[in-house]
């Protein structure tokens, strides 16, 4: 069984466990270096397809040029892409809050390939250090299961490690350094829709220091952005988000790479209204499970793990490159989940988490032979979202089992 094979690794001799970690790290390094070399040789655009990191680099450059608010208008951002790539463009709207553009701005001082290398080295390093701190003995298991999501994130030069590290830091420090935890949670303003469930956990667990520090971080960074970019940046950002929502409504994003219930239903042919209602039901289920884990779960660590896992299920707009956060969730859940879930449930959970991370890429590989078929790309089945929902059902079963044991003891 998958669970037995993977869980046995932590009992291996240190040398063999180190070999596992080194092979995995070598895999990450190989992908990072090969991508950096390709960017050095050909730039970010190859065969008409742009790497996601290109959008980050363009936005960083626009900060220095003083017109970053134009990046929020899709037509302008397309022109910026065309300028940066000698004519080629991709479907890459810019919808991040201004804090993220400000954070990226130093990268504009480097050529694209070097900026990619630096961004990956810093964020991946921070993410892995955070994961090691949380996972401890289960590090190899977590790394193996998160490998597809990590590899996909490196491949696109995406920001999943940054959000994963920030969520991880929030969790590590919640007990002993709540203000630091709150600063990390507040820094999640760069991708606020992935922090809603963790914020809800802080409210349910009455972590007022964390909430205060997070709120202060958001206010202060917003003030800095207002001073740097001017007040109009906020209107431009909100307009960009509205425009992006209309693109989502039109099904213009690659749904098969998205991990939400919304994407699953849209890709299955459902209307936008049905998909929104489906997403609302999934969000209620996720938040209900979170509430139950806080009230009846085996430990606060486990409840925090549920919060991190469900943070991926709240918004319709979430991708496979956001799944490094699931590694943090697994690391938090594992000690209790190993005791509460059956071997079959654990095997299914492990398999589904790895599958959710790798499905989008494998599907991309299958569609690569026909790059012009954009309709086929958007309509390909989106199954990572349901995989995560099944994982949440298995986590819910573990919580109910714990509640049952508590009832017997009481």
């Amino acid at each position, binding site marked *: 069984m998958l669970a037995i094979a993977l869980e046995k690794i932590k009992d291996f001799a240190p040398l063999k466990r180190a070999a596992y970690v080194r092979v995995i790290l070598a895999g*990450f390094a190989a992908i990072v270096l090969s991508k950096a070399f390709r960017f050095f040789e050909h730039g970010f655009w190859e065969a008409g397809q742009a790497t996601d990191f290109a959008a980050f680099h363009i936005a960083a450059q626009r900060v220095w040029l003083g017109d970053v608010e134009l990046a929020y208008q899709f037509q302008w951002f397309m022109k910026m892409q065309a300028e940066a790539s000698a004519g080629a463009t991709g479907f890459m709207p810019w919808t991040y809050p201004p804090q993220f553009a400000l954070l990226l701005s130093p990268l504009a001082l480097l050529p694209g390939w070097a900026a990619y290398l630096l961004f990956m080295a810093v964020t991946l390093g921070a993410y892995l250090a955070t994961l090691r701190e949380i996972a401890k003995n289960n590090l190899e298991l977590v790394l193996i299961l998160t490998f597809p999501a990590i590899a996909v994130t490196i491949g696109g030069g995406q920001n999943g490690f940054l959000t994963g590290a920030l969520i991880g830091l929030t969790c590590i420090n919640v007990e002993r350094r709540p203000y630091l935890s709150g600063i990390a949670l507040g820094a999640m303003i760069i991708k606020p829709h992935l922090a809603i469930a963790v914020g809800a956990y802080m409210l349910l667990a009455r972590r007022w220091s964390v909430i205060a520090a997070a709120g202060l971080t958001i206010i202060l960074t917003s003030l800095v952005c207002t001073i740097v970019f001017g007040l109009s940046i906020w209107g431009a950002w909100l307009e960009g988000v509205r425009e992006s929502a209309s693109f989502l409504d039109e099904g213009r994003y690659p749904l098969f790479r998205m991990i939400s219930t919304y994407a699953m239903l849209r890709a299955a042919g459902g209307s936008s209204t049905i998909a929104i209602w489906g997403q609302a039901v999934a969000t209620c289920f996720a938040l209900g499970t979170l509430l139950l884990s806080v009230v009846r779960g085996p430990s606060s660590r486990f409840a925090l793990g549920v919060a991190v896992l469900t943070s991926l299920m709240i918004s319709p707009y979430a991708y496979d490159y956001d799944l490094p956060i699931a590694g943090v969730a697994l690391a938090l859940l594992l000690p209790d989940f190993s005791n509460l879930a059956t071997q079959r449930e654990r095997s299914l959970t492990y398999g589904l988490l790895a599958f959710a991370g790798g499905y989008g890429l494998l599907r*991309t590989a299958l569609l690569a032979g026909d790059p012009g078929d954009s309709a086929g790309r958007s309509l390909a089945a989106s199954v990572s979202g349901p995989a995560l929902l099944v994982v949440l059902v298995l986590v819910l079963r573990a919580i109910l089992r714990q509640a049952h044991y508590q009832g017997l003891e009481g």
Partner: protein
Amino acid sequence: MFRFKSAEKLNAADVFILAAIAAFASIVILVC
């Protein structure tokens, strides 16, 4: 590089897991 005692040698599960990791890394390099 790595010297394993007989009890620590790679078994079939180890080889499968490490091969899967290498295969996926190769796909990412080729496709992304």
